[in-house]
């Protein structure tokens, strides 16, 4: 007389909490997830192919549009991998400024994550608090390079211009109040019983599974693996910086939340070191007007806010543009773990899992 039927439901591509155009096909038994299939590609623009048809200088503009909330990190990856391909040595001052900007970007990216993740779970207010601070960082970007989101912040060989007068003061103003702001988010969430119930033990993925899926970034560190490209393969000025890699072992949503909050503090610490130890000197290396490559290939990973962002560049003899360009986007790789994290759990956990993975669809689809 009665029969059970599974309900197939499309979460997205237009859904308030899929952070863009992610479509997740869910088979539900009641509210329990039987099968979860992320379907990506709605935002595919072919960035890699386009970059193969642009010169090395032009390519950077396209990297902004991949992970658009962490454009500076993408720029750094591109600039450094091209420099590696051509063996260009960047002045120390430029390295420091790049490090400072990238860490500011890490904070702004994590702020966006914190806000939207909390909003997905139902805590509205954190979202607006986080955006208040993000605004201040974007103002810093604006005075540095004129753009707020798609920054194209660096040039191959260093920086186009030295930092503007008053920039350090502006960053310092942010530095001075940011630690208190983190405490403010913590008072709203960290000890909140509902927040804890919604995050502890939710969307777990242990270290072995993380490694099998190639998951990196805070998700991997929350599973207890102390892997951070900044320490493992130092780039920019990170070798001279003093900072910790926060890890947890619980491997759940709450652990990832705590790891990212600690990363706020570490980034804050790195920025302070950059400000205090900013060396004098040039910001631009001497590079030819036209870059012509040799037959060469490089893979250059950096630690983007979401995880390991790798650029694979192949040069051909005399080529002004890359022969082959491939991006290892952390959002794309991390998203593959979504079914593992959610199957057999509840609908509301999918929302928490998408939030805690911190994917940006611009980078997933590229």
């Amino acid at each position: 007389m009665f029969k059970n039927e599974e309900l197939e439901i499309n979460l997205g591509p237009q859904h308030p909490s899929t952070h863009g155009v992610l479509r997740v096909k869910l088979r539900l038994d009641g509210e329990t997830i039987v099968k979860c299939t992320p379907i990506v590609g709605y935002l595919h623009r072919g960035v890699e192919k386009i970059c193969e048809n642009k010169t090395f200088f032009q390519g950077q503009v396209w990297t902004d549009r991949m992970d658009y909330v962490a454009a500076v990190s993408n720029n750094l990856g591109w600039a450094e991998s091209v420099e590696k391909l051509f063996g260009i040595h960047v002045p120390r001052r430029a390295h420091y400024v790049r490090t400072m900007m990238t860490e500011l970007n890490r904070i702004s990216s994590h702020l966006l994550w914190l806000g939207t993740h909390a909003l997905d779970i139902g805590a509205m207010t954190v979202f607006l608090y986080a955006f208040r601070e993000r605004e201040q960082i974007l103002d810093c970007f604006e005075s540095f390079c004129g753009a707020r989101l798609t920054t194209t912040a660096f040039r191959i060989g260093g920086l186009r211009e030295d930092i503007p007068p008053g920039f350090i003061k502006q960053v310092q103003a942010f530095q001075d109040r940011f630690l208190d702001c983190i405490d403010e988010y913590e008072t709203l969430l960290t000890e909140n019983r509902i927040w804890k119930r919604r995050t502890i033990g939710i969307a777990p993925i242990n270290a072995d599974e993380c490694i099998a899926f190639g998951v990196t970034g805070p998700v991997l560190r929350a599973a207890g693996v102390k892997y951070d490209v900044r320490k493992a393969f130092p780039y920019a000025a990170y070798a001279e910086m003093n900072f910790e890699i926060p890890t947890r072992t619980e491997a759940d949503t709450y652990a990832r939340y705590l790891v990212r909050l600690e990363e706020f503090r570490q980034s804050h610490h790195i920025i302070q070191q950059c400000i205090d130890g900013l060396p004098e000197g040039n910001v631009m290396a001497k590079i030819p007007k036209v870059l012509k490559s040799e037959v060469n290939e490089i893979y250059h990973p950096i630690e983007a806010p979401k995880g390991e962002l790798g650029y694979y560049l192949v040069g051909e003899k005399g080529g002004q543009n890359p022969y082959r360009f491939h991006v290892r986007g952390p959002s794309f790789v991390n998203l593959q773990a979504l079914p593992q994290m959610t199957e057999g759990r509840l609908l509301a956990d999918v929302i928490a899992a998408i939030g805690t993975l911190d994917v940006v669809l611009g980078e997933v689809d590229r």
Partner: protein
Amino acid sequence: MMTPVQQVVMAIIQITVLVSIILLIVPLMTFAERKVIGYIQVRLGATRQAGGIRGFAAGINKLSWAMGRIPILSFFRGLPVFAADGLKLLLKEDIVPDRADRFVFVIAPVICMIPAFATFAVICFYPGTLFTFPTTFPIIGGLPFTGFLTDINVGLLYIMAVGSIGVYGIVLGGWASNSKYPLLGGLRSAAQIISYEIPLSLSLLVAVVLSGTLNFRELSLYLAGVPMVTAAGEIVQMPLIAAIPLFFGFFFYITCGFAETNRVPFDLAEAETELVSGFHTEYSGMKFAWFMLAEYANMMAVSAIAAGFFLGGHYLLPFGLQRFVPDSIPFLAQPSLLFFFGKVFFLLFTFLWVRATLPRYRYDQLMSVGWKWLIPVTLVNLVIAATIRLIF
């Protein structure tokens, strides 16, 4: 005694006044929601809305910003937005989805709204006569205008009975939309409201057990702790120790009230980030507005009941502590509309405050909170109340 004609005319006048007040407060609540949450979240638009750049008010606002304070004059800015909202909802195209069950789809918001308004029929806003019509009035001349619509002796039973009808509107609305998210929202709501109805009733039973009546007016007078003359002519007063179950009962009741009205942290039926808009995803225009009206009217009803039973009703002090107010200060010792509405508005503010602060429970967690936690503690509270009633 009133003649039947007088009764009907009086009832029509009172109902008109009551419904107008509710219909005025509900849109104002949406305005207050914007403002309160805006200030809590430091939203720039809501805190500086339509400030203007010249003039006295703008000057005061600028001065208060310069002093690092929130400008007081901007508190009421944006007030016309609620009128615009209403107009928009009225003029908006009313869409019924193609495959929806048309009749049920249309009737669902009505089922939701009518019980929400009907609850107010027994709520006592003032336990006596507010004013008397001058004798020069036709038909109703010389009659008293009371602070309550009806004074029936099954008031609380009526509230519980009528209050549980509203959920049918939500379930049917979600089902009739013939869409997946509303269906999930409707199902969640059904399970949630049925589960929370039990602790809600158990926490209200505390009040009934202590006072021995179901009449809203007598209940609120007795639980305020003032000496009250019963129908049998004896003077009764609530024992002071009864404040203990009353105090806990208040928190249990408010918690269940949040769940009954589908508000954060129990807003699973319309969890925006999970179910898009839950049961009213497919609704637009005035039908959607009816759901909204029902939700806010329910919030008001829950606040009024909590204020009436637990927070001392029409008197100043809550939990039966009114006896400590000296009679020498007549303003504080007398019942007043001001006290009642002050409490109601404070509770309504609490609804908004909680919404801005707390995340949302997950569906199964909500159920376990209801069944494993709220029902046992409300039962214990009821036993305590019954013991106090027996002994004192």
